[in-house]
């Protein structure tokens, strides 16, 4: 193992650096070192989009200053200083200055930018003040008329596309901060750190604006839906600050650290108002129509604060025993003012007798009529962990750990008379919650406590092998979930072997079983049935690794991991009708993955080669049922259907570095490949009796990334290099969820009702999205750089 790691340490950096395009770091042998990489590059990014290419980086055309560094590290003095920068004057630039006196103090300051380029897009919304999008009344009327007439799709290529304004959906994160470490006295350190962050730009956010009409007595399945999706630029204007202060006392026998952390988040644009493109004016709800709204509001991230106190300590005991513990308590608070239920003044409220009232009856647009002006929410986290480890005999190590993490949800429970879901003119009573049999709407507490313990030990059979076993349990207790809690027992065994100097490996097995406590409470209309995060689960994981050195200069590693989750339990319901039975494993049934990889590396005096490749497969299988209005069997098992998602990934990278002409010409070559194929399949288990449960094929998903970098570096003089680089990177993506609606990301889908029992008679969907997506690109970058080092 060690032999392999040693070689990998020499070769792996090449593989990574070749992919990342890192500049080589100058050797710091002299007292003062200075290096700079400057040059020019030509960039060509063509085909569909370039947003994915520059998702988190900036690759500009023209002159570039890739990096600089100034260092002062004298052997004759405890003082040191360094200043460095990367990607100077780009959107992903970063700088750091460090100075200090060894053994006394160290100061580091930094400023870094992280871009996130989602995509380019287009919209018809007009930006007024930040967080307020408007549309002209005439334009909306055209859209509404077209929507009612079912001709939106005909409008888009013409009127809509011509009216759209282009968008650059880009967010930039600026991070700046400083850290100071001071040695106050022997064995007493003080650490102070402070940071500020600013995030600005535009992301994307969606909102549903569907309408429901033709409502008749009975269930929703007798209604007509028209789903109207709208996507908007998400205004991002965040500020965040973080601070920490801690002090440590350490001696030979033990240590203790105590500290405080604080953070504050503020959102400069915390509400998003928008004109509904589909509705020029609100309409009042009626017995058969839930009405429409013309203006909506979305509550964006609220301001919040966080504080944390922590202490950590450890002590050495006889028999090479050590105990370490950490306790921490944090508190998050949020008290942003609430928005009103809706902006829709046409809101109506169904009275006790089922008749619809007027807007005066409900607190729709008046925030003062809410049960509270703000949440006044608090949440406290408490962490405590304790670990003991002992080596009473040279070959024997035993260990034990206990850990508890508690999330105390201290938000006040607020009871609301109802809510206006998407802004339509109909005030809903609730979402299925009841107290004493009466419907209510309140914010359930989501607190929980997680307690985990484990004991284990290992025995080393001399150099050739060692055996490690561990057993533990993790228990969750919930305030308000479908179950009272879960308990998972976990066992694992690891065998490491090194029978020969050139051969080593590891085999490991993990098995666990999770069960829930109490009765499983089936929630709103089967929502929450078998939530996979709290349901019964059997987990198995196998790991096998072998490393060997076929020659003095070669190492090869092979690894395989299989991981499988089974969710064996079933749910029962009296509404499940025979002849199919009354118990079904709805929800996620199984999730599994396989991962295999191989790596190889070698090095000679002039050349280094490293390669790694792998195959990954993951699969999710679930079972669903379509709701119908079959009397006494809303969830007729005839309408069951299964869904399987299968993802295969093949990846590889190769790096070669060497001296073509010793001390004169170097060559760097890096190649990376990632090939993803995804399948989404649905299948009927029986003959469904409604159209909406009929399985049909989905298109496959494909993503391909190929990246290749070639660099040739000539040493012109001592400390002066010239480097020519070429970087070729094509990316291909076929994702029907984006591609299906190309080129304008809008569309109309008419669903055909097959039978009176079908769930969506004459339902339709209309969307106006931002055309925000990334897709194919091919990038070519040619660079010429001069690197000077002193």
């Amino acid at each position: 193992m060690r032999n392999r790691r040693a070689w990998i340490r020499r070769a792996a950096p090449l593989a990574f650096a070749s992919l990342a395009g890192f500049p080589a770091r100058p050797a710091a042998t002299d007292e003062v070192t200075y290096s700079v990489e400057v040059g020019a590059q030509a960039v060509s990014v063509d085909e569909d989009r370039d947003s994915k290419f520059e998702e988190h980086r900036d690759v500009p055309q023209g002159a570039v200053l890739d990096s600089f560094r100034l260092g002062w590290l004298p052997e004759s003095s405890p003082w040191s200083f360094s200043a460095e920068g990367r990607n100077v004057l780009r959107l992903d630039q970063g700088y750091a200055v460090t100075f200090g006196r060894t053994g006394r103090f160290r100061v580091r300051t930094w400023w870094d930018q992280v871009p996130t380029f989602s995509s380019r897009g287009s919209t018809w919304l007009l930006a007024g003040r930040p967080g307020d999008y408007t549309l002209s009344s005439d334009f909306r009327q055209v859209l509404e008329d077209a929507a009612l007439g079912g001709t939106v799709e005909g409008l888009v290529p013409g009127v809509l596309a011509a009216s759209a304004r282009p968008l650059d959906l880009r967010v930039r994160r600026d991070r700046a901060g400083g850290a100071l470490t001071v040695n106050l006295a022997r064995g007493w350190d003080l650490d102070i750190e402070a940071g500020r962050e600013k995030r600005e730009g535009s992301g994307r956010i969606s909102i549903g604006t569907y309408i429901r009409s033709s409502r008749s007595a009975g269930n929703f399945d007798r209604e007509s839906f028209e789903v109207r999706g709208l996507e908007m630029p998400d205004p991002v204007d965040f500020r965040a600050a973080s601070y920490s202060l801690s002090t440590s006392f350490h001696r030979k026998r033990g240590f203790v650290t105590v500290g405080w952390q604080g953070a504050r988040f503020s959102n400069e644009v915390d509400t998003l108002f928008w004109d509904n493109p589909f509705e020029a004016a609100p309409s009042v709800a009626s017995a058969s129509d839930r009405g429409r709204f013309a203006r909506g509001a979305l509550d964006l991230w609220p301001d919040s604060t966080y504080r944390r106190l922590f202490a950590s300590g450890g002590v050495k005991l006889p028999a090479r025993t050590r105990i370490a513990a950490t306790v921490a308590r944090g508190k998050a608070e949020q008290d942003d003012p609430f928005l009103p239920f809706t902006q829709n003044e046409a809101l109506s409220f169904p009275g006790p007798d089922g008749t619809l009232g007027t807007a005066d009856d409900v607190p729709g647009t008046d925030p003062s009529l809410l049960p509270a002006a703000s949440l006044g929410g608090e949440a406290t986290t408490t962490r405590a962990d304790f670990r003991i480890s002992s080596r009473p005999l040279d070959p024997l190590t035993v260990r034990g750990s206990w850990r508890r993490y508690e999330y105390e949800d201290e938000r006040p429970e607020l009871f609301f008379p109802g809510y206006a879901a998407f802004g339509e003119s109909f005030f809903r009573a609730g979402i299925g919650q009841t107290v004493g049999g009466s419907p209510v709407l309140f914010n359930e507490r989501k607190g929980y406590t997680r307690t985990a313990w484990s004991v284990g030990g290992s025995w080393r059979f001399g150099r050739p092998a060692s055996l490690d076993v561990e057993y533990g349990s993790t228990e969750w207790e919930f305030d308000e979930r479908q179950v009272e809690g879960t308990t998972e027992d976990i066992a694992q065994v690891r065998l490491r072997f090194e029978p020969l100097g050139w051969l080593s490996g590891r085999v490991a097995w993990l098995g666990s079983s999770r069960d829930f406590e109490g009765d499983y409470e089936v929630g709103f209309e089967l929502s929450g049935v078998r939530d996979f995060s709290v349901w019964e689960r059997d987990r198995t994981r196998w790991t096998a690794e072998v490393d060997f050195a076929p020659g003095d200069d070669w190492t090869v590693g092979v690894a395989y991991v299989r991981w499988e989750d089974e969710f064996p339990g079933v749910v029962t319901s009296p509404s499940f009708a025979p002849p199919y039975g009354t118990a079904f494993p709805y929800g996620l049934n199984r999730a599994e993955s396989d991962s295999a990889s191989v790596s190889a590396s070698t090095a000679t005096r002039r050349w280094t080669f490293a390669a790694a490749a792998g195959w990954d497969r993951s699969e999710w299988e679930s079972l669903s049922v379509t709701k119908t209005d079959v009397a006494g069997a809303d969830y007729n098992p005839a309408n069951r259907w299964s869904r399987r998602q299968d993802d295969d990934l093949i990846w590889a990278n190769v790096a070669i570095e060497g001296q073509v002409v010793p001390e004169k010409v170097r060559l760097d070559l890096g190649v990376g490949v990632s090939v993803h194929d995804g399948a989404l399949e649905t299948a009927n288990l029986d003959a469904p009796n409604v159209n909406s449960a009929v399985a049909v094929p989905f298109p496959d998903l494909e993503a391909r990334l190929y990246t290749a970098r070639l660099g040739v570096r000539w040493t012109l003089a001592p400390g002066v290099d010239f480097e020519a680089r070429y970087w070729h990177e094509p990316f291909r993506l076929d994702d029907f969820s984006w591609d299906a609606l190309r080129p304008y990301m809008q569309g109309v889908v008419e669903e055909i009702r097959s039978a009176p029992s079908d769930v969506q008679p004459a339902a339709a969907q209309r969307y106006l999205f931002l055309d925000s997506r990334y897709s194919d690109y091919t990038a070519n970058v040619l660079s010429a750089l001069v690197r000077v080092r002193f």
Partner: protein
Amino acid sequence: MDPGKRFGALPAALCGIVAGLSLMSGSLVRASEECAACHEDLVKGFAASAHGRAFRYDPQSEGASCESCHGPGRRHVEAGGEAGTIANPAKLRGGEAADACLACHENRLLQAHWTGSQHEAAGVTCADCHAVHAASPPRRGRAVVRSTTELCVSCHVSQRKGLLQRSTHPLREEKMDCASCHNPHGSGAEHLLAADSVNDLCFTCHQEKRGPFLWEHAPVREDCLTCHAPHGSNHDRMLVARPVQLCQSCHLQGRHQTVAGLPTAMWNVNRQCLNCHPQIHGSNHPSGPLFQR
């Protein structure tokens, strides 16, 4: 005698004892000079390393020398440098391999949870990741290779795929590295996390999602990893599965069935379920109990 065993029997306070004796006898300088007579390159490079500077200038390392880690060297010198006559921590296995390092580092917060940690249990030793004789890398001040991520994926080979997958954290761009989230020396938290929990860790960068919110989504509040694969994913937003598959693994509402077909249906296109439930991480809107506002 196996030199490893001999070294392993040294008490954890070896560093202090040897350093103290060396200081008293003035053997600190002699030890380095004698070592340099044969190991010239190592000793020369060591002077500029973090260890070298600490040995020279840090009062807390006062008296430290080559023997602080390698044990008494007299026998080695007398044997003419014969291999096996001096301890070499880099060639040891098991708990003994870390004794020399822990003698000084065990009681520092960063390494305090090493003993009993996942890496220790897996047989990883300090020398597997650290080159203790090397000049300190300028940016990190510790004797690690050029980047933390490249070091980690050299053993965690399968995680290398995340660098090339459709969605991932900005690791390739070196805006993050593995140590941004993990403390490889051990942590009381799960997965060697450098925070109290998965969520507390994510909130250090994604502060806007901390809340608390008026309406909370239980799986979100409990564990971000329920839905996200932070090391990289074949799906957008680092999701563990397509949104519709992921959401409907729990939510089986009849009115939201994916209708098995219709790839262009609202719940299958664009942001899928999030087209109408954008605030899935929590909503603070009175009309947002289903995360739609």
